């Protein structure tokens, strides 16, 4: 079999589209100005950012003054989940209304580290009370459970739109509606609602109105844009305390000279997503299911994430009795690039908190491999992976002394959820 180069790690990052690079290029050299400067070079850069801002605002159904450019998804998430509880106005409002000194924040157990870690650190410091909602075995947050956790002093709810590891799509509009209804019934402006939409931005039509989101994160590096640029949508009237303080750029919410080429590139990437979103999604759905079906034919495997309510590019499978890092490196030797939830492959040496949160054991998390497809993924590539994978699994199982009993991993499938369709 001919060795191929197959990149299946698009949830980590996508290649930057050539059209995006072309759009960015002049802003490194001839159009290099600082948007804050009072001369024509500065104005030129400023106008470019203004145009980009309009494109990006339209992309999520927002006003242009609601778009804050940042250095990426992590910064946007941090700015939202720290910036809101840090704001004295909000803390005072909660205190006046409820008498509670410490505001309450709700999130889920499968959020990205960029949301979970700052919230956990803030909880540790005693600055917030935190509720981490559990998820079901497919990685879905229960809307009724979320409603039950709402308290008068709840200041912020942060739930991701779709998960980066297992691809599960959250009922985000339903969550937004539930929060809105609570606010109306309590006659309160709180809680505010933040969603991290980094993974779904390329595949789902994002509408801050439909989601009733007050804050929304997405970034360039997952949607064929440049790395190092992200967006935080902040609804008009929502006060926020900045993290980066200085020259007052981005409405004083994110000081620092704007990354003009990256912002221009992000706008171009968004334009392309707008055009290709449906085509991408339908095409990938077919390849995704072909890959999942092919891989699940290997004995002792389970699909992680939701069977249908899942991003069209995401397949995450646990291969029992083998360890993920070894499998990823063996696959890499065959030209196939993937990622794993195994502890051994993480800097923290903790297995994937997402897979553990879905109720699977450490063993299953260690053996999980994530395949995330992209715009350029072909049927031939999928066939190649389906051909190569059994050999890799077999080889590692030969070497492995572990022989787990699958009865501990059986998951009865819900027929009703299987019938639903995605996107």
């Amino acid at each position, binding site marked *: 079999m001919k060795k191929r180069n197959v990149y299946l790690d698009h949830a980590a990052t996508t290649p930057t589209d050539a059209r995006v690079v072309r759009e960015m290029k002049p802003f490194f050299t001839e159009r290099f100005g600082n948007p804050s400067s009072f001369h024509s070079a500065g104005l030129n850069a400023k106008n470019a950012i203004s145009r980009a801002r309009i494109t990006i605002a339209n992309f999520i159904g927002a006003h242009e003054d609601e778009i804050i450019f940042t250095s990426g998804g992590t910064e946007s998430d941090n700015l939202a989940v720290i910036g809101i509880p840090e704001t004295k106005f909000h803390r005072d409002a909660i205190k006046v209304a409820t008498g509670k000194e410490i505001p309450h924040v709700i999130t889920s157990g499968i959020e990205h580290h960029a949301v979970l870690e700052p919230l956990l650190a803030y909880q540790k410091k005693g600055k917030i009370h935190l509720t981490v909602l559990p998820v079901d075995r497919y990685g879905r947050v229960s809307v009724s459970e979320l409603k039950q956790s709402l308290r008068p002093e709840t200041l912020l709810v942060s739930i991701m739109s779709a998960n980066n590891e297992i691809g599960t799509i959250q009922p985000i509009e339903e969550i937004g509606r539930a929060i809105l209804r609570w606010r109306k019934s309590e006659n309160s402006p709180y809680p505010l609602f933040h969603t991290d939409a980094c993974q779904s931005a390329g595949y789902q039509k994002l509408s801050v109105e439909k989601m009733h989101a007050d804050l929304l994160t997405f970034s360039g590096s997952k949607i064929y844009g440049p790395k190092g640029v992200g967006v935080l949508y902040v609804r008009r009237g929502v006060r926020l305390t900045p993290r980066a303080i200085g020259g007052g750029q981005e409405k004083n919410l994110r000081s620092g000279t704007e990354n003009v080429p990256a912002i221009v590139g992000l706008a171009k990437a968004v334009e392309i997503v707008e055009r290709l979103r449906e085509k991408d999604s339908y095409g990938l759905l077919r390849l995704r299911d072909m890959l999942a079906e092919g891989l699940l034919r290997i004995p002792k495997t389970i699909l992680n994430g939701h069977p249908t309510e899942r991003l069209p590019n995401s397949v995450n499978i646990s291969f029992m009795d*083998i360890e993920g890092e070894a499998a990823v*490196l063996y696959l890499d030797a065959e030209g196939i690039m993937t990622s794993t939830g195994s502890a051994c*492959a993480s800097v923290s040496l903790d297995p994937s908190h997402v897979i553990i949160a879905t109720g699977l054991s*450490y063993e299953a998390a260690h053996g999980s491999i994530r395949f995330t497809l992209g715009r350029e993924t072909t049927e031939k590539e999928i066939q190649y992976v389906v051909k190569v994978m059994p050999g890799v699994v077999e080889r590692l199982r030969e*070497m*492995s002394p*572990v022989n787990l009993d699958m009865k501990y991993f059986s998951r009865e499938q819900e027929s009703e959820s299987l019938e639903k369709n995605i996107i």
Partner: protein
Amino acid sequence: MNQPIEAAKEDARKGDVVANKREGWFYTDAVKEHFFHPKNFLDHEEGMEDACLGMAGSPACGDAMKVWLRVENGADGIERVKDFKWKTFGCASAIASTSMLSVMVTEGEGMSIEQALALKPQDIMARLGGLPARKVHCSVLGDKALRSAINAYFKKTEQHDRVQVEHGRVIDCVLKITDHDIEEAVLEGADTLEKVQEKTKVGTGDPSCLPEVEQLIRFYKEKYFGA
């Protein structure tokens, strides 16, 4: 790279043998070779019934291994490792370090039991040209599995007085981490719970043991560093 163990020994025993490569593959060439072409792994268990079994780690922790050992008296009358086979569940460094261990104990006329008992993880790492720092404590379990197999051999040959008692009391019941592991981590410079966790992963499966771990860290810090 493949320097003999004696030369590397002194440096190796001083602490972790850490590879700090700036470029190239994720691991050293020796690790790569043993990972993609593992030596002496057991492909079928038939015919191994007479071998002495040893085990270490657990799949929940991320690394587990099982080894099969045969011992014979050499021409000089010394008990030597005749055969050493293994199976490992784990990452590249776990697989490579078990493979390297199997080579080390069987090369030449075979390692004597005394030498084998004295093997340290650092010896294996030195032969591998080092491992990334965070991989050191979880993935090099081969020496533990080897000692467990040698004990099985002592029991089998009724040399009960030679059975090595592994000192240490299990603190983390999920990951089978002992007070001895905590002591080693502290000795290697981990002076906070976070740092000890980085090295040993203690408490990731069973956080209830953490208060005791913190106490042990304080105890060993006082014992060795007087602070």
